[in-house]
């Protein structure tokens, strides 16, 4: 699903966020990405979502080399990925329903299909009763679940989550993680960046540990 070969990322100004990263995560796998803050977790996720581009090395997504992919093709790659942010990036002038529907609208689904899929996703996350509300009226945990609903509504092959539980209490965090496990069980590849060691230890998934922009140890293939 994801293959990095000797990938480095140097930001303008000389800061080297990632240095010589190589790993391979197979289709349908689930893994954690850990490391102290500033270790390069976010940068690695951004390279996968093509928000940042590698300075050296090559990035493959779903068998396709996306390293030098043209800007016109990027949106179509991003539609294969569900991205969950720490601050959820919801649109506050739209209802929960419209927020979740956005990826389907962008992909050009038919009206009826959009309604069906959005309600299915909201139902799965226990938000069906809130579809007409605006995000401001929801609690932090609910907002995060709306963000997750938006990420999965398009049935992506890959879920990327950047500190998805950063602002949540342990109880809610565990719930969110269990949701990710559920998605993984139906075949979605999941990569979660987090520094919540307790959470990682409580679940038995492979861990990619970043230290100062390098992978600690040799994780090899993540299956």
């Amino acid at each position: 699903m994801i293959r990095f070969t000797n990938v480095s990322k140097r930001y303008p100004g000389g800061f080297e966020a990632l240095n010589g990263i190589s790993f391979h995560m197979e289709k349908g796998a689930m893994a954690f990405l850990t490391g102290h803050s500033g270790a390069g977790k976010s940068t690695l996720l951004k390279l996968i979502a093509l928000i940042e581009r590698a300075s050296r090395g090559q990035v493959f997504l779903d068998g396709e080399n996306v390293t030098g992919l043209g800007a016109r093709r990027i949106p179509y790659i991003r539609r294969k990925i569900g991205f969950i942010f720490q601050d959820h990036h919801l649109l506050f002038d739209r209802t929960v329903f419209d927020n979740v529907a956005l990826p389907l609208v962008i992909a050009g689904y038919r009206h009826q299909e959009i309604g069906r899929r959005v309600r299915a996703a909201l139902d799965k996350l226990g938000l069906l009763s809130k579809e007409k509300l605006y995000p401001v009226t929801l609690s932090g945990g609910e907002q995060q679940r709306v963000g997750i609903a938006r990420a999965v509504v398009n049935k992506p092959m890959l879920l990327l989550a950047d500190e998805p539980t950063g602002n949540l209490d342990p109880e809610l965090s565990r719930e969110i993680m269990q949701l990710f496990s559920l998605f993984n069980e139906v075949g979605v590849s999941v990569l979660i960046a987090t520094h919540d060691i307790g959470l990682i230890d409580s679940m038995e998934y492979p861990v990619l540990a970043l230290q100062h922009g390098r992978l600690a140890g040799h994780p090899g293939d993540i299956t």
Partner: protein
Amino acid sequence: MIGRRRNQRVNDASGTRRRLRLASPRVFLQRHAQVALDSLGRLWRSPLPSLMTAAVIGIALALPSGMYLLLDNLQRLGSNRDNQVSLSVYLKDGVPAQQAQQLAGRIGDWPESADVRLITPEQGLAEFGARTGLADVLGELEENPLPAVLVVVPGPAHTTPRAADALRAKLAALPEVEQAQLDLEWVQRLAAMIEIARRGILVIGGLLALAVVLVIGNTIRLEIQNRRPEIVVTKLIGATNAFVRRPFLYAGFWYGLCGGLLAWLVVQAGFWLLHEPVARLAGLYQSDFSLFTRPLASAGVLLSCGALLGLLGSWLALGRHLNAIEPG
């Protein structure tokens, strides 16, 4: 390497197929209609700023189009008369009618003249009376003050000002002729003035069209800045530039269209106000001239101009500012 490239092409192909399947023409139209209505709804929700922008556009479009229509009327006033160049040759008093007739025949044989018509003093008086409504007064006159007149129409090769003037000199030199006068000079002068005014209006119109583009461009630029977070999020979840651009293009389109509509209303109202006094003035000159507006044609021109300028303005703003907004 070759294998990888082939692999990529397969992916490309499947991606394209998927897109085509999703974006059937019906869905495409449905989506456009939705975005168009959405953009209109956005303008509707902030009526005062939208109306102000539309009003600026409307005034900017109404000025040149109103002036152009006035000019059109003026031109019609000129072409109402016989726009042909002709010369009036006033014969001396005491030239008998028969001699005048012979002279007309002689001049008619000249290569410079295409047509010669004799207006006897009696005909002239009758015509003058009919045209001015002063027939009763003229009837009181003891004798006819009008001379016999030959109306000479120059041949096609002699209508230029210089050739016509040469012909006038030749006619004036004839012994029977008191005076030869190039008629309808005022029509030519009017035409020349109208041409100058038309150019002037074209320049003003061009500048005001530019102003419309800039106003809409600036409005859309502010709109882009206000909706920056939304643009970032939609790009993050796979929106193409076309998708992001669409609502702004429609917003520009609506601004332009509303501005065009306002401009049309302003022009129509202006002409409605002018109609009565102009008709009264024309009546004083014994003319049945009245302003004409061509409401349908001007509506078509103003609405399409407004919409096009709106699209252009937002397109320029998007080109300048949208690409700078990327998630990161």
